[in-house]
């Protein structure tokens, strides 16, 4: 098996005990159980391979895969192997684990697992009770006018009550806790009317049964709680598959290579002191403000400024925290102590996040109104039936029972769960229903350029005389010896070539002999020396000037169609598409085919991006930000809805509402349409529930709501709503493919 080269330092942090604790779930003697989250797990072969870890490392006793949560559980012998070497093994197999310490909050897999467990237990208890109570109730309903024999009725009633107590106390407890905590904060959420309905249902049934007034509603009660729990299970499952809690902290280094007295060791970055000599390797982020000791280095400040072309620094220059080293390892002296919090503040200073309307807020507001209306109608009914207190109480409770917005509580998670499942099969992940709402409302789309609209890799165009195959390979061979990013792009994929007398003048160019040709490659000054300056890279072979190379970004496939298609998405007003990039204007020609000149802005820092999003919002627009990197993170946090595109599922993405693979970006219009339709489905459900409840309330007010009728009405409304949700989501999701 081919193993990928792994950057060992990244996992050295696991040697630190504090950090290791985040991964370990259980340890006794030398036997340790640990878990790793592996974002890149994607197919059955992954399961097969990760199941066989013991074949690669004899210290591993067993490994167990949880595919849906993308986690592998490993049991190992600490005397034979270590957390770090397991992490390295996983990475070398192509499954780089996401360390828990990289998360901002430390929420892991374990709490999600136990949440699902208790949900299943609640469902088990409620299902058991509902099934048995229904058997007793049906025999009572069918017994006719004479009723059951008194001893049988007594037995059935007492068993029903006995069975319904665990449903009330255990299965329905989530709604009571939620309603209680909302009420104690003096506010009403959607769980309040649900909890009210459930408790009235229970109390009324007990009173009816003990006083011999009727059969009670215990069958409806248990069935209702069961349906509510199943709705919640849908919800939980949809959220289990993808975690959105990766913040920009995931981009930060956890440890740094410290050099002291000729020795290198790895320390947590919070331990770096002023004056320490640190080594930062290719692709690593500089953790603190420092001074460059190496002769030269290339620093990519795109995380901070948005410009993706690295800057060249010479020995003695100041390097700011947040820059990424490109090419050769840089040796630096720290001029300020490093800290995670300092790095975080680089991005958090514009961390003013827009308050997003989430669907929860909407349904909570709805819940508050609902409760008020239901209680009012019930009271009116009560007053109308006075002075007959018995009948008045009967009507009062019947209204509260039938008005319980349970169908609605079930409808939303089921719609969302089905929609998320449908999108998830296309590798598109959305965060919550609020996201659907904002997606369907957004009328302005701001795109980042590099990595979003364009491919991350540059294409090279050559202008000049035709070159032979040998000459090309000579150019590539020489270019591969430079650490300059442009040269690296030119050399990309070149086979190793024999070169000699290579000389590089940092920042100007490189020359050397390869395949009998003598190549000079570099700036206009370095190659031609005619006193002029331009952006291209020039080439001469054996003293003869042959032409120049220019780097271009290449648009992803289907971008033209996507921009056209976006105009045809039904929305309140014409959709505005904009480009906001931190790069220089060199790609203006590529983009001008898609966007008018007033729609593009260049050289924007992350802060500028935030400002432009805010300006748009001040104009009353609902802004959607599409981006891929940390330099977009702040703007994405401030936009109404944010979409992160990734090139593969293992790359870290900024905090966002939607994650989608970059190659599916041209599907964006279809996703917007889908979101709009899902909101319609939810609205239809809402209207249906209200209409259905009106009928129910009317029946309750005239005192016609009998236990049999309730037992039929409640499940029918839930089933219709669930059918509408699942059917709608399934039907429309086919059109995305």
């Amino acid at each position, binding site marked *: 098996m081919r193993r990928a080269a792994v950057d060992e330092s990244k996992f050295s942090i696991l040697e630190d005990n504090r950090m290791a604790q985040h991964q370990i779930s259980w340890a006794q003697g030398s036997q340790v159980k640990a878990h790793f989250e592996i974002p890149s797990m994607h197919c*059955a072969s992954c*399961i097969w391979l990760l199941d066989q870890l013991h074949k690669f490392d004899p210290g591993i006793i067993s490994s167990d*895969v*949880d595919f849906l949560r993308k986690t592998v559980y490993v049991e190992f012998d600490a005397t034979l192997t270590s957390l770090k070497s397991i992490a390295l093994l996983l990475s070398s197999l192509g499954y780089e684990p996401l360390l828990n310490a990289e998360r901002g909050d430390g929420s892991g897999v374990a709490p999600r697992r136990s949440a699902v*467990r208790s949900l299943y237990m609640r469902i088990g*208890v409620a299902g058991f009770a509902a099934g048995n109570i229904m058997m007793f109730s049906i025999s009572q309903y069918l017994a006719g006018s004479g009723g059951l024999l008194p001893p049988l009725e007594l037995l059935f009633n007492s068993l029903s009550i006995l069975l319904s107590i665990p449903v009330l106390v255990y299965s329905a407890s989530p709604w009571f806790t939620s309603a209680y905590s909302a009420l104690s904060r003096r506010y009403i959420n959607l769980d309040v009317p649900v909890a009210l309905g459930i408790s009235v249902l229970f109390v009324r049934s007990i009173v009816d049964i003990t006083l011999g007034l009727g059969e009670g509603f215990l069958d409806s009660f248990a069935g209702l709680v069961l349906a509510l729990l199943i709705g919640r299970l849908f919800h939980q499952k949809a959220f289990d598959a993808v975690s959105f809690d990766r913040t920009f902290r995931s981009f930060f280094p956890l440890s740094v290579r410290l050099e002291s007295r000729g020795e290198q060791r790895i320390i947590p970055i919070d331990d770096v002191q002023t004056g320490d000599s640190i080594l930062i390797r290719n692709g690593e982020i500089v953790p603190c403000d420092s001074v460059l000791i190496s002769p030269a280095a290339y620093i990519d400040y795109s995380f901070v400024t948005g410009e993706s072309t690295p800057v060249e620094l010479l020995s003695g220059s100041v390097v700011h925290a947040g820059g990424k080293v490109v090419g050769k390892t840089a040796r630096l002296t720290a001029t300020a102590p490093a800290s995670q919090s300092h790095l975080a503040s680089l991005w958090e200073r514009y961390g003013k996040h827009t308050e997003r309307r989430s669907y929860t807020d909407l349904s909570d507001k709805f819940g508050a109104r609902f409760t008020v209306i239901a209680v009012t109608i019930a009271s009116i009914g009560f007053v109308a039936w006075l002075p007959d207190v018995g009948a008045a109480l009967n009507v009062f409770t019947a209204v509260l029972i039938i008005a319980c917005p349970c169908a609605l509580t079930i409808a939303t998670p089921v719609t969302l769960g089905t929609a998320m499942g449908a999108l998830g099969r296309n590798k598109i992940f959305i965060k919550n229903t609020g996201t659907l709402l904002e997606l369907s409302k957004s009328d302005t789309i701001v795109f980042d350029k590099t990595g979003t609209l364009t491919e991350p890799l540059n294409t090279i165009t050559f202008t000049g005389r035709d070159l032979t195959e040998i000459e090309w390979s000579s150019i590539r061979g020489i270019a591969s010896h430079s650490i300059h990013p442009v040269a690296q792009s030119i050399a990309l994929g070149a086979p190793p070539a024999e070169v000699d007398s290579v000389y590089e003048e940092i920042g100007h160019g490189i020359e050397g002999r390869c395949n009998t040709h003598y190549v000079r490659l570099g700036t206009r000054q370095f190659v031609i020396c005619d006193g002029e300056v331009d952006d291209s890279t020039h080439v001469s072979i054996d003293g003869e000037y042959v032409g120049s190379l220019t780097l271009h970004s290449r648009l992803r496939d289907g971008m033209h169609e996507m921009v056209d298609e976006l105009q045809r998405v039904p929305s309140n007003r014409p959709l505005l598409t904009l480009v906001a990039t931190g790069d220089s204007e060199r790609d203006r020609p590529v983009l001008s085919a898609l966007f008018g000149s007033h729609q593009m802005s260049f050289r924007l820092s992350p802060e500028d991006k935030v400002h432009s999003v805010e300006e748009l919002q001040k104009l009353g627009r609902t802004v959607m930000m599409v981006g891929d990197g940390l330099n977009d993170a702040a703007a994405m946090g401030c936009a109404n809805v944010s979409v992160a595109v990734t090139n593969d599922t293992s790359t870290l993405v900024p905090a966002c509402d939607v994650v989608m693979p970059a190659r599916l970006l041209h599907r964006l219009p279809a996703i917007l349409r889908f979101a709009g339709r899902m909101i319609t489905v939810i609205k239809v459900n809402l209207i249906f529930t209200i209409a259905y409840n009106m009928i129910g309330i009317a029946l309750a007010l005239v005192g016609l709501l009998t236990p049999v009728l309730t037992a039929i009405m409640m499940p029918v409304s839930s089933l219709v709503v669930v059918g509408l949700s699942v059917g709608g989501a399934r039907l429309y999701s086919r059109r995305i493919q």
Partner: protein
Amino acid sequence: MSVVPLLVICSILVAGGFLVAFLWAVGRGQYDDLYTPATKMILDDRGTEQNDNNDNK
């Protein structure tokens, strides 16, 4: 009809047994992951390295 109460109680006891079995299974983690075990079934068994080697010959 006097047999009905007896039957009802028996049936509840049997159903209760299944409920306990279900709760036990959930507690033991049987319902934690409903996808992976189904896939594992179609993969080769563990500890068949020898067979693998024979196949490769």
